[in-house]
């Protein structure tokens, strides 16, 4: 009898703990935060498919911060004047890092839920244009000389698959 009561008491305490934990302020981004960032940052908001990751575009080297230019096909336009089906080129800072960990002293405004860049995946992005107006640093551009028009700068990148 005693042990059954003990189990009930333990269960009650666990339930109280879980419920009270839910009310504690969280310093992680909530879904609302994520939506707010993607909907307000930058001047363009699109969902786009990452066409490919060229050889050597994404690598990790100690103390070697850089932005890689990646090629996308626009699937949906949420803000801005781009058209569905357009090919765009987007600069991502330190692309070997999860987007939530990419911001640093050089690029302070950067984030999103995307953990890893994979060819063919869909990304929901808040973009700035042009990249040169927002980024001062090394660029790895495997498309150099192969495209015209602006290169966009990814401020916020969420996974959209």
């Amino acid at each position, binding site marked *: 009898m005693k042990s059954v009561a003990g189990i009930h008491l333990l269960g009650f305490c666990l339930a109280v703990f879980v419920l009270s934990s839910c009310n504690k302020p969280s310093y992680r981004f909530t879904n609302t935060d994520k939506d707010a960032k993607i909907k307000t940052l930058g001047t363009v908001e699109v969902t786009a498919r990452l066409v490919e990751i060229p050889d050597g575009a994404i690598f990790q*080297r*100690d103390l070697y911060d850089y932005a890689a230019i990646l090629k996308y096909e626009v699937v949906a336009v949420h803000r801005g004047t781009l058209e569905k089906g357009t090919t765009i080129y987007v600069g991502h800072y330190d692309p070997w890092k999860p987007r939530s960990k990419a911001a640093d*002293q050089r690029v302070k405004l950067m984030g999103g839920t995307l953990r890893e860049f994979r060819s063919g995946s869909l990304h929901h992005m808040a973009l700035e244009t042009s990249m040169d*107006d927002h980024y001062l640093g090394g*660029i*790895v*551009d495997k498309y*150099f000389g192969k495209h015209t028009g602006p290169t966009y700068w990814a401020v916020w990148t969420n996974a959209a698959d």
Partner: protein
Amino acid sequence: MSITPSPRYRFASLRILRCLCLVIFSSAALAGDLSPEVAKLAGEVRGKGWIVFPARSEKGDWDLFVMRPDGSQRRNITNTPDANESYPLFSRDGSRLLYRRLARNEIIDGNRYGEQGVPVVANADGTEPRVIGGEGDLPWASWSPDGQALACLSVKEITFVDAASGKVLRTLPRHGFFQQMTWSPDGKWLSGVANSFGTAWSIARMNITTGEANAVSNVDCCTPDWFPDGTKLIFSNRPPGQKTNNGQGWTQLWSADVDGHNRQLIYGEDGRHIYGGQVSPDGRYVLFTGNPQEDGDPGESGAPMGLMRLSDAPIIGGESKELRALHPDTKSGPVLTLPTGWEPCWTFSESPASHSKP
């Protein structure tokens, strides 16, 4: 049973060993234990002005020091235990010093040091320091040849600023320049690190009248500086394809004509990243820093600097089997080992001597 130390422990042990080696190496050099060739080189440069460089003080902060080019008469000219100082640049006449002052707890970043902290101008001996802007102002500021203006580089543009009033004189699009920008001795060009030539970390020059830019060397290059006649740049370069250092290779000191031709190895050493090349005002010697760790100069405590004759180039230091195989017709010295520091700047002026004791 053998005990294998953890990677972290091994790394810490290697660091301690490297530091000991560096201390022993530099102490031996400075104690007068020099080969006749190196002693001759030291004697040649002893009276040729002064070198300013950041280094850690005995209190642990980064201060600015000056010394004779042979390493003698070293003294602290800032003495600010509550702040770090970095990126010292003598005006071309050697009368003034421009540098950045950071909070003591701010780590100096090897790619951002020109935009960290506040800009300060002082007399060349460090006296009468005057803060000339706020946090991050006048980023990558570099003296004009006459010392009347500063060229600055920000994400927005290149700005030419009157050094006395701070008034913006004119602007230029930056055309991909993003760090370590320096005004040419003839005042007509800027050199810098650029991202607009297809590879990250290209060395480029820009005509300050037209804004036209050309690449000088375009694979993994940085810290460019001018030869005094303006016809060549000296810079750090990590040539691709190296097998050492886990396939990442080592950064070497190179020079090239300003149109990108006649690239030449100046100094390389497997086991040290060579940065901060600066040619003496007479174009005969070159200073550099060399650290076993990438970014080890600003991130930690620097490493002994080196000085060599350009007429002896190319020189390869240490065993450097891979590098020697690539460059068989090189010398092994002489290289004068100087005190620990990084990003040195050299003037032939005697202004930094004002408060020094012979």
